[in-house]
């Protein structure tokens, strides 16, 4: 089983990112679940979402304690939340950041999702949309296939800028 924990802030689209990711995995003919942890939701508050992907049906409902992959949509969360908690040995962290990030003992990949969203004008109510570009990065990391990432995005959003942003992220992410 491949377990992913997504850290974001309320309103940034972490919950939707988890659902898109599960949908893409499902389109890859795998079993997947996406479960947000809901606290007292409000814009800007830290939000955690969980995605499980497996070849077998998934029976687990409890939260992910030892993720294989951690996705951080807002690097400023790391000031207050220990995003690395429980990460598996050899686990990876994907961080939305314009600058390379170094964290001791883990593989870190960084990508400027905010910059990508702004570059294709993917902005809603003044906030850049991160949940669709992040799918491109996850496809590059082979968590899901590129085709399924695009299909999942098109299934949920009619605005093609979402697909464009995902494609840009796919190209930009350096493994």
């Amino acid at each position, binding site marked *: 089983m491949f377990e992913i924990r997504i850290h974001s802030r309320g309103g940034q689209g972490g919950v939707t990112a988890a659902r898109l990711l599960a949908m893409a995995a499902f389109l890859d003919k795998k079993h*997947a*679940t996406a479960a947000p942890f809901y606290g007292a939701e409000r814009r800007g508050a830290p939000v955690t979402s969980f995605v499980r992907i497996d070849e077998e049906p998934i029976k687990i*409902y409890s939260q992910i304690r030892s993720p294989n992959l951690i996705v951080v949509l807002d690097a400023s969360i790391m000031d207050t939340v220990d995003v690395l908690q429980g990460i598996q040995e050899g686990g990876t962290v994907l961080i939305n950041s314009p600058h390379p990030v170094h964290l001791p003992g883990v593989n870190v990949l960084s990508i400027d999702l905010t910059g990508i969203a702004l570059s294709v004008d993917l902005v809603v109510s003044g906030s850049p949309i991160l949940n669709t570009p992040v799918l491109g990065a996850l496809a590059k990391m082979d968590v899901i296939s590129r085709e399924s990432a695009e299909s999942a995005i098109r299934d949920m959003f009619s605005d093609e800028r979402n697909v464009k942003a995902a494609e840009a992220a796919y190209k930009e992410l350096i493994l």
Partner: protein
Amino acid sequence: MLTVATGNKAVAAAVKAAKPAVVAAYPITPQTEIVEQIAEYVTAGEMDARYIPVESEHSAMTACIGASITGVRSFTATSSQGLLYMHEMLHWAAGARLPIVMANVNRALGPGWNVWAEHTDAFSQRDTGWLQFFVSTVQEAYDTTLMAFRIAEDTGILLPVMVNLDGFVLSHIMQSLETVEIGDYIPPMVLPHKIDVDNPAGYGTLTGPNDHFKFRWEIERAMRHSPSVIRDAEEEFARRFGRKYGPTDEYLCDDADVLIVSMGTLGKEAEVAVDILRKEGVKAGSMRIRWFRPFPELDIRGRDLVVLDRGYSFGFGGVLTDSIKSRYRDASIFSVVAGLGGQEVTYDDIAEFVRNRRMNEEYWFGVDA
């Protein structure tokens, strides 16, 4: 069609397929997505139903009662405080023998304010005369909601049905869902005592002790008959759509020495615990109760039971434990109170309950040593 959906969206999709004439509801977390989705179906013309937004849950149930007594299918959904606000009318719906279907997204009751999973809301309506099912997956939420209409409207039953799904844990998780073309799986609703303007009759009039007593016995008679109707609905569902359900969902129970008995999503988590325990040589099984009312016959003879209770009767004990004990006086039970107010309970925790079981004792997870 194979797709992915949340538990809430699955319930809404099943309701759409069941084609109720009236849906009346008031939004409440974590149920809101169900009625939002139904309202969208109605607005988009995908559902030919009258959607009645009301000012309270009491009115939601009253509107369903008013619709149902005219002989048409009706549906509502609620959670927690909303379900309790309906309480008086739940008795009315069952007493008037109206086959209303309701989804209840299980949530704790305040105070303190808590929006997460707990079964106290449903348990507090245990004696209203509603049939109650508890489900554990998005698919089961969809399938059971469809079956609920057929069961409720069976002329041998004519009682309302509540489908319970764990708040957030199931209502908001996204899993795969196979929707079906229901065809004539749910026959047209026929209410023998529906209001008929050509044959005026009195409804809800003063009823003397003898008649009142008979009416109550009629409810119990229907309840005692209901297992055969539910089984028939489940078997017909399996025949048409390929998915089998029963009063319990049993995992490796046949040769088990110890059974984990639970309801809702904890029952699936328990299966993972069973796999872990089996590897350690413990002959464990998981028995998830799907029908809470009518309460099913259980094959528990000679086994230790570890009962997970997500609701409690203060001054007495766990509500599921209580139901099992009243029927099986000799049952050997370790009663574990766990998961109240959305308390996180993992498969490791459940395996630990089994390893450390103390028969005929009660244990409050996270509080007791």
